[in-house]
Structures are given as structure tokens and as C-alpha cells.
């Protein structure tokens, strides 16, 4: 029998329902797996005792016939979600010792659905990074290894700890957040399904803010079905988040039965970049063939402003971040490094508390908002954003979903690209347009690279049409038949 920690979310759910094992059994397996996976450094805080308490409470609920959609399922939570009574760091030194007296809306939804928290996962500091190499708590290792190459690889970022934990079979699912690709790119790097919902689908309340107009929570899982189940539990209107949208949460799992016959799938020519690896290009062609074979029609479309998306993103996101991170001043919580004057205290606290990448983005953001540069940078970026959304709106008049690669490469070695921020930022080139336009996107593992590393395909859907997007993703998943496993699986 498969070890409990290796079960998919749906299989674990069904096994719990049938009484094959208890939530406590399942949680104990995950706790053991978490301990075995420590070399990956996927967790900042492990909460095994809380997990067992929650599992026992779950078993008690089930005994009374009260079962939620995620009843008894252990999950890992990105350390950007505030969790009541549990250290929350955002991967940063500046939040030293910060224990929130409140629970984020998304995690509260998960616990209400019966899920069990196993721990808080490592991440790029304040979600700024694409390799999980900016965390104050150290790098996360990708459970995958290249063929004949034992160098540790990055898991992608910023939700790298969540991705590593799910890929290593510690848990069937984990939460992530995606501001420019922080769920989808690590999913692609670790052979997972990563879903960024439509902006406004999940509440941002209680999630440490990076870039408010782009941040969105979503699930990292090993299957499309698990993604659908978990999204259903995370999503929902929240009056405490003014940008949350009051629209009913459909049964996403039920949407997977439809198939793609008759759907039109857009293939944007602008995503065919100069110098793109041939294996990415050929995987994309394969994806097109799979969908056509399943009865969809593919349509060549143009998203003419795509080339401006990455520069616009690297203006908007730092601008908002520079303001969002102003509250970490040493006055009320987290780290305070004393100084002789108020200004010295600010400088010492923020100087010590923030890492290099966060400082870089705070400075970029401050610069693009400053008098005399605002129009040239921030306002221009906002205009670009409007044009990018218009590109998509026009495309979606002709197609039902869009297929692209998720990332321009497979996972790379820890330490690579560290000296070149621009090369690092290029990781997000295919993912940021969905953030800038607020559209949902999902990455599905589709193949192995020549080095034996996972590569993902991305489906972008219409706003609040996660159902069609999931259907397309499900068909890709079936066609790809991706069953490769990482070099490291917890407990084996």
C-alpha cells in the first residue's frame, strides 16, 4: 500500500471517508515525512502538536458525521499567511518573534473545511524572489535532481517551501501566494500543479502584503483534481478585503468532468521568445497537439503588449511593496534594533531586518513613485497594465482559454543567477501577465526536460472562469501522463 503521506488529496479524502485510516494516522505520516524532509529546509516552523490536536478534533467531527471538504487533510501553509498563535515570518528577519493574534481569512476557511496545519513553509523574503534564495531562514532545496548531476536545485519561488513540501510528499497540498508567478513557477520547477486564482477570488486579509494589486493566494498540489478541491475551500468573498469579489464559489471538482471538446484555445505568438529553449518550445507544441487530440481547436492569437509586462510588473510590484513594507519600522512588533535617535532606530532596524532583494525592491519602488519620476515609471506602468488587460479581453472574445509555457527554463542550481537580478526576474516572464490582468492561471506538469527535470505548461483562463481553466488543465494532465517522481521522496 502507498504510504499515507504519498496519497493525493482526493485519495486521502476518500480513504478517510471510507474509514481506511484516521486523520491522526494521516497526520502522523505527514509529521514523520516532515521530519524526514528537513534537509530540504522546506519549513520555517513545524507545528506537529497543533497538527495532532487538529487531526484528533477532525476525527471527532467525522465520528459525529460532520465532515468538511478537507476533513482531516494535512496541509502546509506558506509563512506569508498569518496564523493565530503561530510564528509568522514572511521569510524575513524583520518579523522576528511575530505571533499574530489573528488567523488569515484563507487559512481560517481551510480549518473550517476540516484541514490540519502541519507547519509554516519557507519562502523568499516577503515573497520577493523566484528561487527561494532570499529567505532569512535559508535556501530551500528542490527534491528533484538533474540526471547525473547531484547539485542541489532551487525549487522556484517565492512559494518554494510549499512546493518542496508537496513535491517531496510531505503533504498532499500547500498554500502559496502568487504576485508574479510565485505559485506557478515553483509548481513548474517541482512537477506540481500550481493555481493562481482570479484576483479577488481569495481574500487577502491576513496575508502579509507584498504587492496588493497583484497578490493572490492559491493551492500547490500534485494533481489538478486536488487543486480544484483545495481552491474550493480557500476561495470566497470576504467583506474584510475590499478587493474581494462577491461571487459564488462553484464546485470546481465537478467542473473537471467536462473535457475540452469544442473549446477554443488561444496560442499567443508573443510568448515565443527569442532564444527560448527548444525543449520548452517543443513541449508547448506537444500541449497544443494534446488539446487538439481531445477535441479542442487551437487559435493563433496576439497579445501585443506582452513584452512590456515584465518591466511594468517590476515597477508596479516594487512601488506597492515600498509602501506596504513601511509598517516594518521597529515600533510595534517584530525586530527592533536600538538607535540613539528615532532615525537611527529606523535605519538600524530596516537595515538589519531586510535582506538585499527586499532592499533593492523597496528602493526601486521608492524611486518610481518619487516626484519627477512618477509619470515616467509608475503611471506608464499602470497604462501598460490597462493595455495588457485589453489584449486579454480581446483575445477572450475569440478563445476560451490560453496555453503557454509556465517558465522559460527548468529548475536551476542554487547559486546560479544570483548575481544578476534581471536574469532572475526573467523567470516570471510568462507568469506576470496574468497577475497584471488579474486573470487566473494554472501550471500543470507536462514533461521532463533533457536533464530530467519537470517542465510545466500554463493555462490562463477568463476572470472568474477557473472551471474552464481547470478542465483544460485536467485534459493536459491526462494527456501528459506525468508520473515521474523526484529524487527525494520523504520517508523512502
Amino acid at each position: 500500500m502507498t504510504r499515507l503521506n504519498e496519497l493525493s488529496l482526493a485519495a486521502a479524502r476518500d480513504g478517510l471517508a471510507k474509514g481506511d485510516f484516521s486523520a491522526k494516522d494521516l497526520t502522523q505520516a505527514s509529521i514523520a515525512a516532515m521530519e524526514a524532509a528537513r534537509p530540504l529546509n522546506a519549513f520555517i516552523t513545524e507545528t506537529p502538536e497543533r497538527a495532532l490536536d487538529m487531526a484528533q478534533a477532525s476525527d471527532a467531527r467525522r465520528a459525529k458525521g460532520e465532515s468538511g471538504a478537507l476533513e482531516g487533510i494535512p496541509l502546509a501553509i506558506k509563512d506569508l499567511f498569518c496564523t493565530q498563535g503561530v510564528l509568522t515570518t514572511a521569510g524575513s528577519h524583520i518579523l522576528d518573534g511575530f505571533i499574530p493574534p489573528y488567523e488569515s481569512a484563507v487559512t481560517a476557511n481551510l480549518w473550517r473545511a476540516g484541514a490540519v496545519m502541519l507547519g509554516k513553509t519557507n519562502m523568499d523574503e516577503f515573497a520577493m524572489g523566484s528561487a527561494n534564495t532570499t529567505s532569512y531562514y535559508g535556501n530551500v532545496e528542490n527534491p528533484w535532481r538533474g540526471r547525473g548531476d547531484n547539485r542541489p536545485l532551487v525549487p522556484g519561488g517565492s512559494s518554494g517551501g510549499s512546493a518542496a513540501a508537496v513535491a517531496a510528499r510531505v503533504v498532499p497540498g500547500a498554500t502559496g501566494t502568487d504576485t508574479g508567478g510565485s505559485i506557478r513557477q515553483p509548481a513548474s520547477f517541482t512537477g506540481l500543479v500550481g493555481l493562481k486564482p482570479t484576483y479577488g477570488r481569495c481574500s487577502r486579509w491576513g496575508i502579509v502584503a507584498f504587492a496588493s494589486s497583484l497578490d493572490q493566494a492559491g493551492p500547490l498540489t500534485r494533481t489538478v483534481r486536488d487543486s480544484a478541491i483545495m481552491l474550493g475551500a480557500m476561495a470566497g468573498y470576504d467583506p474584510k478585503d475590499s478587493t474581494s469579489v462577491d461571487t459564488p464559489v462553484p464546485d470546481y471538482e465537478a467542473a473537471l468532468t467536462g473535457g475540452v471538446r469544442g473549446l477554443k484555445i488561444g496560442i499567443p505568438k508573443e510568448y515565443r521568445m527569442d532564444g527560448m529553449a527548444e525543449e520548452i518550445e517543443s513541449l508547448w507544441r506537444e500541449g497544443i497537439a494534446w488539446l487538439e487530440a481531445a477535441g479542442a481547436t487551437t487559435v493563433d492569437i496576439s497579445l501585443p503588449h506582452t513584452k512590456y509586462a515584465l518591466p511594468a510588473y517590476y515597477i508596479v510590484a516594487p512601488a506597492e511593496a515600498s509602501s506596504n513594507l513601511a509598517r516594518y519600522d521597529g515600533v510595534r512588533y517584530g525586530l527592533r534594533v536600538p538607535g540613539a535617535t528615532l532615525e537611527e532606530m529606523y535605519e538600524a532596524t530596516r537595515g538589519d531586518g531586510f535582506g538585499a532583494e527586499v532592499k533593492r525592491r523597496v528602493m526601486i519602488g521608492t524611486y518610481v513613485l518619487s516626484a519627477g519620476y512618477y509619470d515616467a515609471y509608475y503611471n506608464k506602468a499602470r497604462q501598460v497594465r490597462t493595455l495588457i488587460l485589453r489584449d486579454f479581453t480581446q483575445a477572450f472574445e475569440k478563445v476560451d482559454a490560453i496555453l503557454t509555457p509556465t517558465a522559460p527554463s527548468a529548475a536551476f542550481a542554487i547559486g546560479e543567477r544570483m548575481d544578476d537580478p534581471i536574469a532572475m526576474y526573467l523567470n516570471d516572464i510568462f507568469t506576470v501577465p496574468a497577475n497584471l490582468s488579474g486573470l487566473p492561471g494554472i501550471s500543470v506538469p507536462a514533461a521532463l526536460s533533457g536533464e530530467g527535470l519537470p517542465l510545466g505548461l500554463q493555462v490562463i483562463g477568463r476572470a472568474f472562469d477557473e472551471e474552464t481553466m481547470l478542465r483544460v488543465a485536467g485534459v493536459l494532465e491526462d494527456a501528459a501522463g506525468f508520473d515521474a517522481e523526484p529524487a527525494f521522496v520523504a520517508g523512502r
Partner: protein
Amino acid sequence: MSMIQGKTGEWEVVIGLEVHAQVIAESKLFSGAATAFGAEPNTQVSLVDAAMPGMLPVLNEKSIEQAVKTGLGLNAKINLTSVFERKNYFYPDLPQGYQISQYLEPIVGEGALTLDLPGGESKDVGIERLHLEQDAGKSLHDQHPSQTYIDLNRSGVTLMEIVSKPDMRSAGEVGAYLEKLRSILRYLGTCTGNMEEGSMRCDVNVSVRRPGEDLGIRTETKNVNSIRFAKLAVEYEAKRQIAQIEDGGAVVQETRLFDPDKGATRAMRGKEDAHDYRYFPDPDLLPVVLDVDWVAELKRGLPELPDAKKARFMAGFDLSAYDAGVLVAERETAAYFEAVVEGGQGRDAKQAANWITGALFAALNRAGVELDAAPLDADKLGGLLDLIRDGTISGRTAKDVFDAMWESGKDAGTIVEEKGLKQISDTGAIEAIVDKVIADNPGQAEQFKSGNEKVLGWLVGQIMKASQGKANPGMVNQLLRKKLV
């Protein structure tokens, strides 16, 4: 136009005001925390107000309603779409590291306010805009020798910033502007206007110029917290700037502070130290979009405002501009006045106005209480006026009755009854007293008979005294003359 005489000639002073008015609302602009004045430090602070990680602002609709009502009361343009932006700067009592405010697209645009000036004159001052913003917390520097304490109770409280055009030309106009604005805010119920509690504060922008010339360089004196101080700040700044220029110097554009102890302003920071606030639309909030019908409904529901009430009092009750102005300055006074006049048949409006602005205001002042706490309501004062009118008591007695009413809270009739103050209008009774006074004072009676008119008053006084003030003075006069002819 009032000019200031300098060493080298006349100068005109140009003033614009930015008033920060705390909106009357149960909760803060973007959180559910309470807003009561005087609460223990840090007891009215939500997670949002303390800027805890991951907290998000949610707009309080009451604040929007109050701002729109105020805009309507200032005859200003209501902007159906407005945008909240972030004003970024670091300060320990600003937990978010930014203040949420409105910048490029405020909720209220241009309007006007009419000043009531001495001598019944009036003048219009333009309103540039009104926008909503969060208040900051309070830094307490005097609680510890080396550390600063922070009280976040005010953090996030809704303020309306009301910006005037530079249309004022004297300290007197500044006083009239603040009084009128406060009166309108109180009528609307959108701000208490209590400057001593900090619920209304102003920044005073002053510049000077030779008559007919372009505007001069201005200074901004921040956070002035009384009308008197605002006037003093204007006078001080005008003189300082004129002296500066006349002595061959120039006015520097800067932010200044008013020192109430010295009655002077002093430099706080210059233009080169000005913050770059890096305003940008707050991504946590959607633009505020108002429904035109909702605005129209608010407009229909507005109370009668001071200008309209004053005009109605002048036309309907034949009051002077001055009396009407005094009565309408506070909504409660105007309501009290109307209740007195309309509470009984044939009451005289002018007489009611005199009693309110005279005896009643004096008593309120002495007791240091507001009108709503007066032991004498409109019904009771009306009752007193009725007793004067129907001759039950004399005007002189009425003053004593008023004092007794103030002391006891009883109505006029009861006091007159209890103290036996009823005016004696019985001819026989008065005649007896008159006869006795004449008999007791034969010398004075003779003097009158021989043509000394003045002595009559003395004799009337003796009779009133003998009657304990109760004799009807008209009848006393009449009878005395009859007897002495």
C-alpha cells in the same frame, strides 16, 4: 479692504485655510474601532489601526455620507468618483508608514462659504476642495526621559480636510470663516467643531503683497487649535513678513508652528526639507463611486443652514442682521428661539431675542454650561414672557423671576405664585400705598406741586419699594399725578 501700514507703504495680507475637521462617526475611516474623545490610551485601536501585517482597510460608509453632506452644505461640487491614495512618510504615530488620504480626486470640489462680518456685511470665500483622510496617532514626549510613548486612539479617525481659496484678507475674516464653517459643520452634524478637543484644527497659509501685485511667497503655520490663535498667527505672520521684506529680505516658503505662549510663529521646516510623499492610489481600496440619486436624497435631507435661517429670521421676525446672526450661530440657540416665539400666542420675537441673547446667555456664561443643560427650557422662558405681556409681573420683577427660575427650575407662574410677586393692578390697593407715601413725604409732594418734575421718579420709587416692587408702575404714575395736581 483692510490694509496693513508698513514703513514703506500699504500691504495687503492674503490668507487661505486648511481646516481638519474630525467627522462625527461611530467608527474610524477604515476600521471598526471606536472614536470617543478622552478614552484611555490605546484602548480604541483595531488591528487595522495598528497596521498589523496583512490587515486591510474597509471604508466606513458613514464617513462618506458625512463628507458629502458637508460638501452639499458648502454648496460645493460633489465628485461622483473619488480615489483614496497613500501619502507615504515615516513617523512612529503613523503605523502604516502612510496616511490614506485623497489627492488627485477628492470627494468634494469647489464651493463657497459666506462670512458674516461686523456691521451686518458679508463676503464670500471660495472653497477649493474637501477630501477625506485618516488622522495619525499621538506621540507623547513627556512621559519618559528618553523615550516617546504612542497613543493610537486617534490613528485612523476620519478627518475632512477643507481647503479654502486664498480669499481672506484679515485676521477678522479668518475668525469669521472659522466661526461660520464650525457653525455649518455643527448644523450638519458632521463635526463637533470642538477645537479644544482637537476635533477641528487648521493650517494657516499667509502671504503679503503690495495692493494690486501678484501673490507673495506664503508660509504655512500648522496645527493651530483655536480661532483666537488662528487670528494671532495671521497677525504675527503678516507683520513678520512685511518687516522681512521692508528690511530688504525675502519671505521663505516654509512650514511654521504657532507658539501659543509667545503668540508667535517659528520655523519648523523649509521647502528643501519637504517630504516627497510619493502619493499613489491605494491598491487595497476601490475608487469611491457615488450614486447620483443617493446624493440627491442627502441633499433633500439637509437641515436649514445658518444663512437661510438668518434670512428667514430677519424677514419673518423682523430681527436685525446682528440679532439674527447671533441667534443662528448655533443650531440649538436658533431652535430655542423659535420654540420660545412659537410656543405661545402673541409672543414678541424681538423681546424673545433680547431675553435669549441677554439674560439667558449671561446665565449660561456664568454657569459655564451649554444651552441644552440650562435649567430653563424654551417653554419656561416663553411662560415668563407671557406673564410680562399680560401684566402679571413687571419687567423689573421678571428679572428676579428669571433668576429664581434658573435656580429652581420651576416655571414662572409657580415662582410668581410662591413668592407673591404678582403685580398689583388693583386701583384701591395702589391708591392706599400712594396716599401713605404722600402723607409720609409731604416735603417732596410739595416740591412736585411747585413744578419739580424730577421728584416724581423718587416718589414712584418709594411706592414701588413699599409695594415690594409689585405695584403696576403705569398705574402708580397715573395715580400719583392725579393726587398731586
